[in-house]
């Protein structure tokens, strides 16, 4: 577990989802909308329909160069201009899949153009050149806590004095390869996700997502007042049944939240066991905090979800209102789950948590000056 010794600031952040930018995304979620649509799991090759939230106009199938590149370019252009990639302003690129779907496309099509997008180093190098960054670019990837990992690495670079500011960019765009993998695991199926609801079977949805955050020592109104990462090292696709992994991670942020009234933005993909364990751990670590999950509307944006949902949390505080737990039907699994939106004015901060394959957990406490 790692806990930051001194808080740093978020000078700027933004995201792009199937709803659009952070403001559009927040507004859509607050209206209770879902961007998930039933799409054949293997794209043009068909397969079972599964709930996916793709960028407007983007097909699930890969192209080379990727169709999502325009969205990443526009997102990066919305970040503050700086000599990103220089020694004082490093870039941390994070995601869980990068362009791995390109390898599947390469196998199917034989087109060599897919290859250079199909692995983190080559994909990141293409991004670096496209976005005009210098050479000081690092890659951090650990499944669906990737964005949190990049945020913590950036925090450490700034805290240590190695960097004045750092840019964290996280992205995950869906492909038949990625959707097919989750479908094979039987957790992406024909049902829409219903996070934190009483259900007979769980199901998730997946979504396109990308986001950035600029981490700064002393610039910005948003403060990362605590960060924690924990890995259970238990099993690739399962958490310890006693919830100790969730609890261990949240304890790393609970100290920073002591004395504050916080709300809790959970991971909430729609799987049953993890959802129940997460809500129980949140209740223990942050008693009385309302719990919300947004992946019923956004889909799970995988490795980018930590930053995507940070940007939506910032918009929530700016707007004075958090969206509720979007998507699905049924009774909430706990009275702590907020199905409807609520005013954020009475709170001192928001804890944003994510979980990942491999038993990885991450959380941060975001406060506002």
């Amino acid at each position, binding site marked *: 577990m790692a806990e930051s010794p001194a808080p740093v600031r978020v000078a700027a952040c933004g995201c792009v989802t199937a709803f659009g930018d952070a403001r559009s995304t927040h507004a859509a979620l607050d209206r209770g909308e879902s961007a998930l649509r039933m799409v054949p799991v293997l794209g043009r090759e068909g397969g079972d329909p599964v709930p996916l939230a793709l960028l407007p106009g983007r097909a699930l199938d890969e192209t080379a160069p990727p169709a999502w590149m325009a969205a990443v370019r526009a997102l990066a252009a919305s970040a503050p201009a700086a000599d990103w990639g220089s020694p004082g302003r490093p870039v941390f690129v994070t995601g869980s899949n990068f362009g791995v779907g390109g390898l599947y496309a390469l196998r199917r099509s034989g087109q060599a153009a897919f290859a250079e997008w199909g692995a983190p180093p080559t994909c990141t190098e293409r991004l670096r050149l496209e976005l005009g960054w210098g050479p000081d670019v690092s890659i951090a990837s650990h499944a669906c806590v990737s964005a949190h990992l990049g945020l913590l690495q950036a925090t450490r670079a700034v805290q240590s004095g190695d960097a004045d500011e750092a840019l964290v960019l996280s992205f995950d765009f869906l492909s038949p390869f990625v959707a097919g993998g989750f479908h*094979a*695991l*039987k*957790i992406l*199926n*024909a*049902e829409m996700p219903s996070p934190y609801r009483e259900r*007979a*079977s*769980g*199901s998730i949805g997946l979504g396109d997502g990308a986001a950035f955050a600029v981490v700064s020592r002393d610039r910005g109104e948003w403060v990362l007042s605590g960060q924690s990462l924990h890995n259970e090292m238990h*099993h*690739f*696709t*399962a958490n310890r049944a006693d919830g100790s992994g969730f609890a261990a991670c949240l304890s790393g942020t609970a100290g920073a939240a002591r004395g504050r009234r916080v709300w809790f933005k959970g991971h909430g993909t729609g*799987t*049953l066991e993890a959802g129940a364990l997460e809500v129980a751990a949140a209740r223990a670590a942050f008693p009385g905090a309302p719990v919300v999950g947004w992946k019923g509307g956004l889909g799970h944006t995988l490795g980018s979800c930590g930053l995507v949902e940070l940007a939506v949390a910032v918009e929530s505080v700016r707007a004075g209102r958090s969206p509720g737990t979007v998507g699905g039907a049924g009774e909430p699994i706990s009275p702590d789950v907020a199905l409807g939106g609520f005013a954020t004015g009475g709170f001192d901060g928001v804890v944003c948590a994510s979980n990942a394959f491999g038993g990885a957990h991450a959380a941060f406490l975001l406060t506002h000056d």
Partner: protein
Amino acid sequence: MPDPLTARLKQLIVETLRLEDVAPADIPDNEPLVGGGLSLDSIDALELVVRLEKEFGIKIASSEEARVALGSVATLTSYIRERGDPARLPS
């Protein structure tokens, strides 16, 4: 004389999961497959489900349904017998 479907499923488990030092006849009918004496985990379950879907023409809809089906060899036998393509069941 063992039930032909049960015997086939035990054979499939050993083959699919490449279990060493385990013979099909060693697998009990009523012990948990996942988390039991065979030490199978969720990745094993995934491999097994893919193989079963192909072999018997079934479609397992969710991880919860898979867990019920893979409760034991006995539950798996019942599940396949109820939902499998009759033409593919051993007689």
